[in-house]
């Protein structure tokens, strides 16, 4: 039982990490926490669901298409709503309220189109169980954790080893200097929104496969937990997101084990409150010097 819970925790925690990375990437370049990220996550899961259950596409084709569409949605949100605000220099509360509004639109349009009830989502890796040390562990969990790991490594390679990644890091450090050196800052931002949305879509698919359902309110709680993970690890830090995700996921699973499932969601929220009260920079985040 104990080992199974740990594996469950790792699987779900890695999914949190994948969502958390999306928060971190956008925060890195824009110093903006994209409130609509959890709605994009839900949209991604639905996009894949439509491909599989309504259009009866091959699962991998459906995932590919769903992820691409969600990535485009991410770009669209930035271009239509956020970029005009940046041009006007309105980056504080107006940007926040805009992202809140966008997430609200996405969720309610999904509700109008698909209804608010649960929809069955295919278990992607329904390959039975493996028995280790007397514990029965689902392939599903193992594969989800592995898939997340592969994606996180890929993202980290994109950020650290490619030319686009270099441009991204340059914009993170000094947007003006990056622009002067010929980096198209808007392209970088677009790219980041695409990557963030696409990874959210994959995470959405994996989490939906884990629970085997989707519905419009699906991302609300998970988005919040992923944010808790990002905050715990330190917003803006990729390893931090993974660490935070794993901690939140495992602690939550163990809390189910110890306390039952009634108050399970509270664990992540309380972690978030505690972190933001005691150490707002998170475990791996760095403290900046305030300029006066």
């Amino acid at each position: 039982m104990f080992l199974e819970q740990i594996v469950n925790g790792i699987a779900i925690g890695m999914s949190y990490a994948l969502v958390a990375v999306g928060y971190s990437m956008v925060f890195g370049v824009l110093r903006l926490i994209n409130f609509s990220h959890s709605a994009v996550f839900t949209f991604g899961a639905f996009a894949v669901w439509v491909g599989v259950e309504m259009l009866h596409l091959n699962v991998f084709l459906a995932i590919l298409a769903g992820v691409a569409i969600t990535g485009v949605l991410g770009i669209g949100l930035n271009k239509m709503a956020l970029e005009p605000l940046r041009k006007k220099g309105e980056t504080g509360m107006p940007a926040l309220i805009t992202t809140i509004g966008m997430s609200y639109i996405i969720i309610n349009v999904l509700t109008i189109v698909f209804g608010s009830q649960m929809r069955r989502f295919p278990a992607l890796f329904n390959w039975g169980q493996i028995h280790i040390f007397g514990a029965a562990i689902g392939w599903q969990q193992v594969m989800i954790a592995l898939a997340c790991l592969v994606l996180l490594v890929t993202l980290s390679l994109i950020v650290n080893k490619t030319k686009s990644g270099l441009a991204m890091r340059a914009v993170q450090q000094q947007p003006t200097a990056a622009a002067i050196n010929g980096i198209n800052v808007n392209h970088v931002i677009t790219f980041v929104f695409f990557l963030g949305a696409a990874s959210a879509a994959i995470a959405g698919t994996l989490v939906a496969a884990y629970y085997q359902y989707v519905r419009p309110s699906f991302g609300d709680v998970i988005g919040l937990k992923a944010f808790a993970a990002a905050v715990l690890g330190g917003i803006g830090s990729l390893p931090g997101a993974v660490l935070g995700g794993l901690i939140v996921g495992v602690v939550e699973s163990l809390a189910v084990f110890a306390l039952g499932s009634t108050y399970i969601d509270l664990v992540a929220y309380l972690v978030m409150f505690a972190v933001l009260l005691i150490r707002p920079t998170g475990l791996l985040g760095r403290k900046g010097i305030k300029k006066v």
Partner: protein
Amino acid sequence: MKNRKEKNRTENVSVRLGMLFRKKKAAVPAFLLLIVLLCLLPQVTSLYIQRNLIMVGFYMVLGFSLNFVTGYIGEVSLGHAAFYAIGAFSVSLLTTDAGMGYWPAVVLSVLLCGLFGLLLAFATMRVSGTYLAILTLAFFYLVMNIIQNWEGLTHGVVGIYDIPAANIFGFAFTMKNGGYYYCILAYVLFSILITRLLIGSRFGRAMKAVREDPLAATMAGINNQTFRVIAYVLAGMLAGLAGTLYAPFCGYINYLTFTYNMCLMILVIIITGGRGTMKGVIVGSLIIAPLGEVLRGLISLFDSLPAEYLPDPEQWRFVIYGLIMVVMMRLRPQGILGGKSRLDYRMPAGLDKKEGNG
């Protein structure tokens, strides 16, 4: 100075109206007339209209409540319905399970909401912006989760039935006798009064300073946290007060009565009208609160169409709220009536006229 005077001559109607209301001779009778008209309203309107007016009233009080936090301190709170819920549940449990009288229960509930406001202000003291918005959302989920699951206290998913009607000196409020209408009207006036008195003092100035530039506020000797706490406690108490009337008004509440949609609606109200202004809250709630009913009315015009082709007004209402948020931020982030007033600053009474005009 000359320039200013010339501007005064060409100013538009709204400024003149504002000037008029500043003159005591005109403002007092106009205000009294408005109150009398508002008092007469339930006598001449249908119960349907009255019900909608009451809902506008509830949202107006909630708007004034959130305005302290979002309008004056400048922090977006996404969990404001939590206070509304706490007020409602507290008063319901005190008047049913604890068998307490209505008004003592109201006082206790409002104090409890103030305490939660304090708690939230404390828990969020080191963050701002989106972090804070997300924490307030988590606060909302936390509160609702506990209300849903703590069966021993809140009756869990079943909710609370048969909440006794609110009453004053044994006179029970109903829709028919207008009790709820007059009570919420009194609460709206109370909200206006308290906002007006507080914002026109050092407390309001300090809150606005914290909103505009927290560091510069600190350097002016302001303890930012003190004023955040004041705003959150006041906001909590005011929303709680609304909740204590909402519960008996509904007669039955459960954990689904208070939703994220409600939180967002309160926010949309002050964004639409103009955060940090009183007229903004009033106009915002007049526009936003009846929107659902207006949509329902519009859609019913097409009732010759088969039902499955008709949009669901509830869901579309929410999409419209989202659109309002995005579009307002793009076109008029300060809200319809927000932004800079073209009226002069009001000098305190007793200041020499000449001095006041600089």
